[in-house]
């Protein structure tokens, strides 16, 4: 059974590859798309826009109290100060983790995600498992990530139902007082800014 399904799956995938090629070739022939623009778009999301952007925002907020104040008051503008803006991050809100509050971001209706600061979402974020359970069983979902949130810490789930995009400002770990922004940035992973992980020193 397993083999048979894998085989089906492989066939299916190679068909998909052919269909995408045929579609691109048709759209190019019709003048509807320019292959160089497609290359550029792939390049942007593979190489230019990703979670390192968000990590820079977080590290700056940790080390620059005035920036943090601007970030919490108007995240879109504060994030644009660092050069990050646009598609799927037009209207940003930052939610801060504290010793008593843990935030988690989801989009139950599709897969809305703050692209300018985190890049394209990982497969798990787009999965039915995550989308369905994050709102009804966030603590169970966090356990799937190895994170147990104590009962006296409030879990706040942000369901991205409109064009507001959420970035979690994780807690700065203890013992990092001596580190500068660049060293801190390296500690900040994608998942800590979605809320499925804590930053480890």
């Amino acid at each position, binding site marked *: 059974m397993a083999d048979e399904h894998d085989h089906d799956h492989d066939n299916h*995938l190679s068909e*998909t*590859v052919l269909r*995408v090629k*045929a*579609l*691109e070739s*048709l759209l190019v*022939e*019709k*003048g*509807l*798309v*320019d292959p160089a*623009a497609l*290359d*550029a*778009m*792939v390049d*942007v*999301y*593979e190489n230019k*826009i990703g979670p390192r952007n968000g990590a820079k925002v977080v590290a700056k907020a940790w080390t620059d109290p005035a920036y943090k104040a601007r970030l919490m008051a108007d995240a879109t503008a504060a994030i644009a100060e660092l050069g990050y803006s*646009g*598609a*799927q*991050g*037009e*209207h940003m*809100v930052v939610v801060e983790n504290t010793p008593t509050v843990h935030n988690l971001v989801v989009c*139950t*209706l599709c*897969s809305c995600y703050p692209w*300018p600061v985190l890049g394209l979402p*990982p*497969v798990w974020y*787009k*999965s*039915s*498992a995550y*989308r369905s*359970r994050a*709102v*009804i069983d*966030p*603590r169970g979902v966090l356990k*799937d*990530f190895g994170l147990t949130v104590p*009962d*006296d810490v*409030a*879990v*706040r789930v*942000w*369901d991205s*139902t*409109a*064009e*507001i995009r959420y970035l979690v400002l994780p807690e700065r770990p203890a013992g990092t007082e001596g580190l500068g922004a660049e060293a801190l940035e390296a500690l900040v992973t994608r*998942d800590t800014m979605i809320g499925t992980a804590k930053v480890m020193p």
Partner: protein
Amino acid sequence: MNGVHDMGGMHGFGPVEPEANEPVFHAPWEGRVLALRRALGAWRKWNIDAGRHSIETLPPADYLRLSYYEKWLASAIKLALGAGLITQRELETGKRDPSVPVATPPLTADKVLPAILKGGPTHRETAATPRFAAGQAVRAREINPTGHTRLPRYVRGRRGMIERDHGAHVFPDSNARFLGENPQYLYTVRFSARELWGEAANPGDAVYLDLWEDYLDVA
């Protein structure tokens, strides 16, 4: 629509399975699909809400079975056909219908990054005054639109509290149907987990949703 995409609160999809060192794309065709759909979008024949609805209206078994980029591919084809950018016959033969003139100019490479950095803000200025204010109790309406909506089933009929006013934003329910932007106030609304899921939920937990004025009543 009460589609299978509206899956908040469902059980049965198994554990969440993060992938270590996940690549941005798992195969080159995924990146091509992302780029193709966005490059087609640059013709402005549809908007983001109509785009989302084209995915929501895939056959439900396909919606659950297909990967994210497979759904984007299906949606790109559906939208391009619907907007007349391509014909069914062109899709089947893979060849341009010679009676249709070549379109020009498409989005070019130099415009890609500027377009991405600009994005498509949905905030709109309005002369209207907001109906609700932070701290106010509201109830999500019990409505079951058959078209596109961003009011998930799991909050309908439930009591929440206005957390924040985001000003007026394009209203997806009308925009997806090309019936106009109908901008209206958008609010972040806080629902306690117990209000949504019953006594078994942790008393301090809450879910926040961004909901338009037409989705809300005074509680």
